[in-house]
């Protein structure tokens, strides 16, 4: 089996290095960072933290070098999906492309470039320490499912099995929208609140007025999911309270807060923006998500003034 990781940042690297441990999987990585790609080709891709792994794989910044692949795993930030799959689509002419990205709308973007798409959502997280070296912060499950009937479940099961054998526990399910929407609702209801206030997850949750705002955002997300017939696999509220505990993620700065502090474009269009968009399509009002979306867009605009 040949797999290409499209976007070999922190999450992409977790999949790339772990899959590269398997004898029956040939791993390629496509990434825009020349330094990261060179380091991977010279010394392998190293993970440390939650697991110590050195994966041997081929990395490239030049999509033309990619051979035909059985699977793609797209792990770019959501705003780079279109460019990344546009450049690499030729490698998946006969293959299947999975997304493990944050947010809503990635599958739709992939389907504009490739025939067969796998919906996915993943919880493991990390950060790039230096080129070729990634800190593995959090282990967690991944869920994959067919995007539409052009992708048979057995094909998804084969990829999930490889990920699991490599050390990334992955489930194949007929409808992956439940886990995806649970994670999107969690992220959309907490990340921007951290980004707008500067507070960690735990401190957001211990302020009653902000915790009530989080619940208001969750309720809108749940209504949009319900209108599409999606059954969430768990209540995002539980995940939010669980993460707020001192020993879990009380001190965690949401990735969007890190983006704002570094003045990097955020994924707001694919989180709250996605909930607003799907809500509009299904006639569900989402005034709070719309307000939060507009405020974070305003934050991004302020960097240009």
């Amino acid at each position: 089996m040949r797999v290409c990781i499209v976007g070999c940042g922190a999450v992409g690297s977790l999949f790339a290095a772990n899959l590269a441990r398997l004898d029956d999987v040939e791993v390629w990585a496509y990434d825009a960072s020349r330094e990261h790609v060179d380091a991977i080709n010279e010394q392998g891709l190293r993970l440390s933290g939650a697991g110590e792994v050195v994966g041997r794989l081929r990395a490239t910044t030049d999509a033309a070098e990619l051979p035909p692949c059985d699977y793609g795993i797209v792990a770019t930030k959501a705003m780079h999906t279109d460019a990344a799959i546009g450049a690499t689509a030729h490698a998946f002419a006969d293959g299947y492309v999975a997304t493990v990205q944050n947010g809503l709308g990635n599958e739709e973007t992939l389907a504009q470039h490739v025939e067969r798409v796998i919906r996915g959502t993943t919880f493991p997280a990390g950060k790039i320490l230096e080129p070729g070296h990634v800190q593995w912060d959090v282990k967690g499950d991944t869920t994959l499912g067919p995007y539409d009937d052009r992708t048979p479940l057995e094909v998804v099961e084969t990829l999930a099995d490889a990920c699991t054998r490599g050390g990334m526990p992955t489930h194949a399910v007929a409808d992956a929208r439940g886990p995806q929407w649970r994670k999107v609702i969690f992220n959309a209801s907490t990340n921007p609140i951290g980004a707008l206030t500067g507070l960690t997850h735990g401190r957001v949750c211990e302020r009653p007025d902000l915790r009530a705002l989080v619940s208001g955002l969750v309720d809108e997300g749940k209504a949009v999911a319900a209108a599409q017939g999606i059954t969430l696999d768990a209540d995002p509220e539980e995940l939010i309270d669980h993460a707020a505990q001192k020993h879990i993620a009380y001190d965690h700065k949401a990735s969007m807060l890190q983006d704002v502090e570094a003045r990097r474009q955020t994924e707001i269009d694919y989180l709250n923006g996605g909930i607003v968009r799907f809500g509009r399509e299904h006639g569900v009002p989402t005034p709070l998500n719309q307000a939060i979306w507009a405020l974070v867009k305003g934050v991004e605009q302020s960097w240009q003034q």
Partner: protein
Amino acid sequence: MNICVAGAGTIGSLLAAHLGRVTDVSVLVRRADHARALNSDGLRVSGRADFTARVTAATDPADLPSPELVIIACKGSDLEAVADRLRGEFDGATVMTIQNGLGAEEIVAARGDWPLLSSVTFMSGTRHDDAHVEYILDTATWIGPYRGTTPADARAVADLVVTSGLKAEAFDDLRPAQWSKLIFNATVNGVAALTGLAHDYRFAEDPLGPLVHALVDEGKAAAAAAGVELWEDPWEMNLLATQRGFRHSPSMLEDVRAKRETEVELINGSLVREAQRLGVDVPLQRTVYALVRGKEASYT
């Protein structure tokens, strides 16, 4: 006429300096070095005007000449402390508040039985140091009676302010103007503080314009429930301000940039509490209020 200006931030300095050209002005400040600077150098105004006014400054009300009018010009977040220091002082004087938001008059009224005037101001400037303020926006101050005062009293003060070179207008009932400004400030200051954007055309266009409009609509619903017919439509005020091409940084934005306590309680807090009391749901205003308070909490 002897006027005491309590609090010499931007607004207090602009008032004290201008009024100091036409009448005797004393200034009550918190810091001794601030009082010394004013007594030795006078108070300089640059920008739209260029002059230096002589004022008498002190940190203790007992050291100041007895005034006929006291203008409390401190920030809303300092109002309780300043009003506490005036307790038992300046018997017979009329006291005027000028703070943003709602409720400043009640805070002062609870600390003495002075006759009270209410006011709101739209002028703005930048305070460069203790004895130098730059006059930037020459928009008006609106004055109305509150307790034990008449429309004629408000007009007399407005006339004096105009004579001193600032803009002012008297109202028989200030509440319509006060509510217009409250809704405008809660919306514009809140959005500016949260986004980091100065008040400019982006507050009237996508993606922020619709949010600003929706926040204003919530405020208008609360005003209607309070029986207040707004003096100006806050959305029109927003359009007008963003069209004049000057990118004003609202004080709440300046405050969060400097990690200072903001006026969110007096502005957004009083709007949300008043709406709640009136039974009007204002979920977006509540959101902005909670987020700005959260931002203040993040300083520590």
